[in-house]
């Protein structure tokens, strides 16, 4: 390996890092002027450069024994993460959320880019060490983003809670990794898979995988590791919450699928009804079932729309984990596809929620009353996002959910009753429940009269543009899902 080769393979990460350092420098030099258009321009330019480096960079490569992996799949997901972060960055600016934290715009943006850097590292590695370091980098930046832009007391409390939950999860992840390393003698996922296939499983390995699942469960906000999510989503500034709900979750599902299927495919076990076998599949099935039930039922009772979105996100984690239990190529494709469209839809939903929050000072259901008349564009995008999350055709959410459940049913021996039918039946039931609370929001938006003293919802043009782009992506992918599915399929062929 030489350094030039190394640099060419991590060029997107370098672009993001350098941009973050430049932004910190700007914050240093700018003092109270640090903020506004210049910061946005630098951020967007850096993200654009990174995107170009992903698109025109090397097609494949595996350096330093799997520490840095470039293939079609990682390139696709790096591009998705960069696009989602660009969307979040446009929400950060200006006039909008920056209102409560004058002079911190540059640092805020730098933190966003550092979080993105962590996620890029996580996506582009098959090594447990880099995986851990990337996850921690992303988490630390996110804790600070939640507390940094805090105008009043509440977000700091949410950040403290997020921090403690996250640190405990990281410790579990690490303890699990140490057992995995002890049982297999390696921290490279591919070597681990080979060792597992060749030797009988040591008893500390299941323990390690179980402990690591706790850490991953926190990252994707699966029940019972979800307790941080509602507070953080509700109290954090809307762009930070949008990033946690979109880019961070996409990377979370990517890495859960990759680690479990690629590294520990041998010790999957089975969660089929009547054919139960110990492994990680039953554990994931339990997480999925709990997340679906708790997330969707708790969302019914919420008055704050951002809290509702948080619980619906927990429910969606359950839906996605349902397909992961099947653990074949089709399931991984469905998981990755759905996590991407979930990310796009949540970014749009949080964007509109943040816009309402700024205009009316709160985000209770009543505050959305009459939005359809005062801000038709925002209301339309919100409707698209929520209906896609609910899974109504012709939006892409329907297609994604269909794929998830079909993949879950495809597991097990052919010709018999699918073993995961119990989980899919639960998922369908919970989807129906979720439709109710999404429609509750939309009823307020379109059919409730606007309060007489309602302040007009004004938003930055950048924010509106992001919302519109997200909305049109949801419609477009619903009509032509193959736009993302085909590259995903091609990328997965290389992996399996």
């Amino acid at each position, binding site marked *: 390996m030489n*350094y030039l080769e190394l640099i060419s393979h991590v060029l997107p990460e370098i672009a993001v890092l350098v941009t973050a350092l430049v932004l910190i420098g700007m914050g240093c030099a700018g003092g109270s002027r640090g903020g506004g258009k210049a910061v946005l321009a630098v951020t967007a330019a850096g993200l654009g450069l990174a995107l170009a480096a992903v698109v025109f960079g090397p097609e494949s490569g595996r350096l330093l024994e799997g520490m840095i992996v470039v293939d079609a799949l990682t390139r696709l997901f790096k591009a998705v993460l960069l696009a989602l972060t660009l969307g979040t960055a446009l929400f950060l600016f200006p006039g909008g959320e920056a209102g409560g934290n004058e002079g911190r715009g540059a640092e805020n943006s730098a933190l966003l880019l550092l979080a993105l850097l962590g996620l890029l590292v996580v996506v582009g590695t098959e090594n447990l060490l880099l995986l851990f370091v990337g996850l921690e980098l992303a988490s630390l930046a996110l804790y600070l983003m939640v507390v940094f832009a805090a105008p009043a007391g509440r977000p700091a409390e949410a950040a403290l809670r997020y921090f403690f939950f996250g640190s405990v999860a990281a410790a579990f992840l690490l303890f699990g990794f140490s057992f995995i390393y002890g049982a297999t003698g390696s921290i490279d996922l591919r070597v681990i898979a080979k060792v597992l296939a060749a030797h009988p499983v040591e*008893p500390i390995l299941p323990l390690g995988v179980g402990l690591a699942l706790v850490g991953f469960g926190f990252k994707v906000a699966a029940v019972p590791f979800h307790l941080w999510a509602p507070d953080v989503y509700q109290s954090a500034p809307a762009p930070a919450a949008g990033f946690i709900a979109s880019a961070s979750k996409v990377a979370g599902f990517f890495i859960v699928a990759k680690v479990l299927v690629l590294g520990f495919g041998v010790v999957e076990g089975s969660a089929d009804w009547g054919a139960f076998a110990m*492994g990680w599949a039953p554990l994931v099935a339990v997480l999925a079932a709990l997340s679906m039930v708790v997330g969707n039922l708790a969302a019914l009772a919420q008055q704050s729309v951002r809290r509702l979105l948080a619980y619906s996100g927990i429910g969606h984690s359950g839906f996605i984990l349902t397909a992961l239990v099947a653990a074949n190529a089709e399931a991984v494709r469905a998981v990755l596809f759905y996590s991407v469209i979930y990310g796009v839809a949540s970014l749009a939903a949080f964007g509109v929620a943040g816009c309402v929050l700024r205009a009316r000072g709160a985000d209770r259901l009543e505050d959305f009353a009459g939005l359809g008349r005062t801000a038709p564009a925002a209301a339309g995008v919100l409707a698209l996002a929520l209906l896609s999350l609910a899974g109504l055709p012709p939006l892409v959410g329907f297609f994604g959910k269909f794929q998830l459940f079909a993949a879950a049913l495809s597991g097990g021996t052919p010709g018999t009753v699918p073993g995961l039918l119990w989980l899919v039946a639960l998922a369908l039931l919970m989807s129906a429940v979720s439709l109710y609370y999404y429609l509750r929001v939309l009823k307020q938006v379109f059919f409730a009269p606007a309060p007489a003293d309602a302040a007009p919802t004004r938003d930055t043009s950048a924010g509106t543009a992001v919302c519109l782009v997200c909305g049109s992506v949801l419609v477009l992918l619903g009509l032509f899902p193959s736009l993302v599915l085909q590259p995903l399929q091609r990328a997965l062929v290389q992996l399996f």
Partner: protein
Amino acid sequence: MPSDPQAYLTLGIFFGIAVAAALVPIGLSHLWLRWFTPAKPGPSKHSAYECGIEATGPARIQFKSQYYVYGIVFLIFDVEAIFLIPIAVAFLDLPLGAVLVAAVFVLLLLESLAWCWAKGYLNWK
């Protein structure tokens, strides 16, 4: 898949012991509190030193939270130096690239120092 069920039993027993080792002292201290040292509040019990000088002034002393800021900054620069140890150990055998990487790392630390300085966190207010 399980190579030896006996090994799982050992693990289970061990974790039982570990949980007990964490919980039993806490439980014992609560029992101790209830049985042997019931609360008997009184003015002499509540004084800071039960014998010796009478305490004056409030117990909560004001001290600046900026001490913590210094502490945090010191902690970061102190511990991140750990990455310089492997470089120092293998310094004479290093290729040019590795030295450059080390230089980049030190520059990163320098930028954070410059940021702290420019933001005025190093000034005592």
